[in-house]
């Protein structure tokens, strides 16, 4: 096999932060914890600012007091309509999608132990994409409120297929076939989507807009549809954090430490699927967040998942909101989709992070 997972980092970083019960070591440990707490607090502040910006800026120019009046339902009809019909749904959906994709990406990279893994690897994005295209092609469905159900169904069906293949192949123990089976199934579904899209121009028109990822023209019913998936997924992800730390040491070692590897995998994969399916259904496949946010989180707080999980959620949410605001501002009336802005801004930032000397490898 060629995947010889690179030097196991968890050990090294743990050794760096908590080398043993000597007094100086405890001091070092305390500094590390304080640093991480600071990081989390700063990120909470950034997220709050991003949410505020998302409420304040948009193609309809409304002053701060106007937004507040609209929010409290005391303003004019236009203010209320803009705030509750557009800004509030966008902000909530953006934050939820970003947080969910960040966490899903973290779980995905943790389980596959592969820095190239994104939440779409289990066929979630490609399954949702195929279902959306089928919705347009067969049933003529294009509204976002209806598309969300197709996307959810497609995502869940596709990931169940990937699970079955991996379980048939290896009993979910090894990370390599997990990634390979996911990539193979995703590519297959993507090929079917391409086939339909290239035969039918209406489908292509709907698909090309859906596939870049956007928060525009979504009401709260979209969030309501996705929210149960996101919440259950979050619970599974939190439950999975300890097991992920153990799995980072390698499957055999995790087993030796008394971890139930199969259960940990199933919980993790379930969490990834639900989070990614909910997010993809709400905003389309925003691939960039899940792929890059975990790397940023590891660079900020190390590899322990009890820290990277909240950091991924915060960074992901803030990132999506900021990108959405920028997309609204630069495009004027024809705003630029959030998925495009994310990658155009986030790409260079991510490269800068990756060029840091102290790179935390997976």
């Amino acid at each position, binding site marked *: 096999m*060629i*995947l010889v997972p690179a030097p196991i980092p968890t050990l090294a970083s743990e050794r760096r932060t908590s080398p043993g019960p000597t007094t100086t070591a405890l001091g070092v440990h305390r500094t590390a914890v304080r640093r991480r707490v600071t990081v989390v607090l700063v990120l909470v502040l950034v997220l709050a600012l991003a949410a505020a910006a998302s409420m304040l800026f948009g193609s309809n120019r409304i002053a701060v007091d106007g937004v507040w009046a609209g929010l409290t339902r005391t303003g004019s009809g236009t203010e209320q309509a803009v705030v509750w019909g557009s800004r509030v749904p966008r902000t909530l959906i953006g934050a939820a999608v970003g947080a969910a994709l960040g966490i899903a990406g973290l779980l995905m990279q943790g389980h596959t132990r592969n*820095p190239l*893994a994104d939440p779409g690897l289990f066929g979630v994005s490609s399954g949702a994409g195929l279902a959306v295209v089928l919705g347009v092609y067969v049933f003529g469905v294009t509204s976002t409120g209806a598309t969300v159900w197709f996307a959810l169904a497609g995502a869940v069906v596709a990931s169940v297929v990937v699970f079955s293949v991996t379980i*048939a*192949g290896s009993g979910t123990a090894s990370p390599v076939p997990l990634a390979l089976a996911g*990539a193979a199934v995703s*590519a297959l579904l993507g*090929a079917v989507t391409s086939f339909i899209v290239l035969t039918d121009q209406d489908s292509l028109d709907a698909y090309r807009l859906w596939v870049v990822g956007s928060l525009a023209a979504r009401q709260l019913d979209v969030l309501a549809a996705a929210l149960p998936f996101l919440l259950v997924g979050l619970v599974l992800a939190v439950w999975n954090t300890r097991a992920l730390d153990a799995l980072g040491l390698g499957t055999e070692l995790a087993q030796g430490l008394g971890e139930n590897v199969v259960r940990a995998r199933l919980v993790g994969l379930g969490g990834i699927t639900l989070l990614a399916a909910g997010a993809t259904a709400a905003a389309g496949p925003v691939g960039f967040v899940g792929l890059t946010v975990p790397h940023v989180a590891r660079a900020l707080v190390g590899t322990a998942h009890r820290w990277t999980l909240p950091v991924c959620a915060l960074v992901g949410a803030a990132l999506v909101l900021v990108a959405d605001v920028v997309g609204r501002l630069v495009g004027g009336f024809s705003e630029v989709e959030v998925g495009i802005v994310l990658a155009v801004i986030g790409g260079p930032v991510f490269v800068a992070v990756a060029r840091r*000397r102290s790179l935390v490898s997976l």
Partner: protein
Amino acid sequence: MSAASVRETAVAPGRRGVRIGPVGLAWRPRVFWCTVTALVTVLVLGVLGVAIGSTWIAPATVVRALLGLESGPESFIVTTLRLPRVLTGALVGLTLGVAGALTQTFTRNPLGTPDIIGVTSGASVGAVAAIVLGGGTYSVSAVLLGGGIPVAATIGALIAAAVVYGLGWRGGVQSYRLVLVGIGVSATLDAVTSYLLVRAKITVATAASQWLVGSLSSTSWSSVWPLLAVAAVAVPLALVTSAALGIGQLGDEVATGVGLHVQRHRLFVIALAVVLTAAAVAAAGPVGFVAFVVPQIGLRLAGTNRPPLLLAGLLGAVLVLAADLLARSAFPWQVPVGIVTTVIGAPYLIWLLVRHRKEMTR
């Protein structure tokens, strides 16, 4: 796992081998017979590919025409119409297969396709920009025949790869950092492609999507020659570097200790992969999935610990030729070959994963 790879790559005492100048090859019967079988399959599929079309030409006649023993309409159909397409298909498969084996080996990651060096994304931006921005004034096929898109794709691919390598450089290139930088750069470039696709007129977007899937429908002798030249130089060079690749897998410290100039070797391997991929993508677009799946199939068929280069290339040719045959004959309209390579390759990889259950769980 790493212990096993050391044992297999080190020259075992008493093992038979072949030595030609600086190149030594261990005698591995399974690899040898797999390679011979793949080569025979390429030849058979090549002859069939020329024989099958709107008019059937007997394989015997095809062989006679190829040897120059035939004149008349059959000879014209064979050498002018069908041979360029078959040759392009075979060469695209060969170059993508070898490039994929190179990148998967040096990143030690089965998901490490040439895409991660930015080649595909760069080529896509170049080609889609040429199609979308030039699409209003002249037809796409005219651009294709005039060499516009291949040139744009090549330029995009080379610039993107240079940017990834340059940004990944930090007192030397380390494969993990290179992969991360590649993710960032590719994401940004893909977003530009998406932006062009979303803003383009739907007819132009269809043409661009067709190119993005990978297609052999507009090939001629002018697309064969550059590809053939690149393959003739780069594929032998890749085979010569095979032994160094095996050493490089042991990690930078060990490889340096054994006497490998790690940085020079890495630059050489990346340059080879870039040139091979760029040539293939310029000729036929980013034909889906070949560079990912073929090395993985080769690895499992030959039972080696890393993708065998030549076998991967030949299997690539088999895959693309078979896909093109199917695309031309089994569907009412000419399905782009990139869709069919995925539809054939993905299930085969899944089947291999399921069948090799025991081998995978180690």
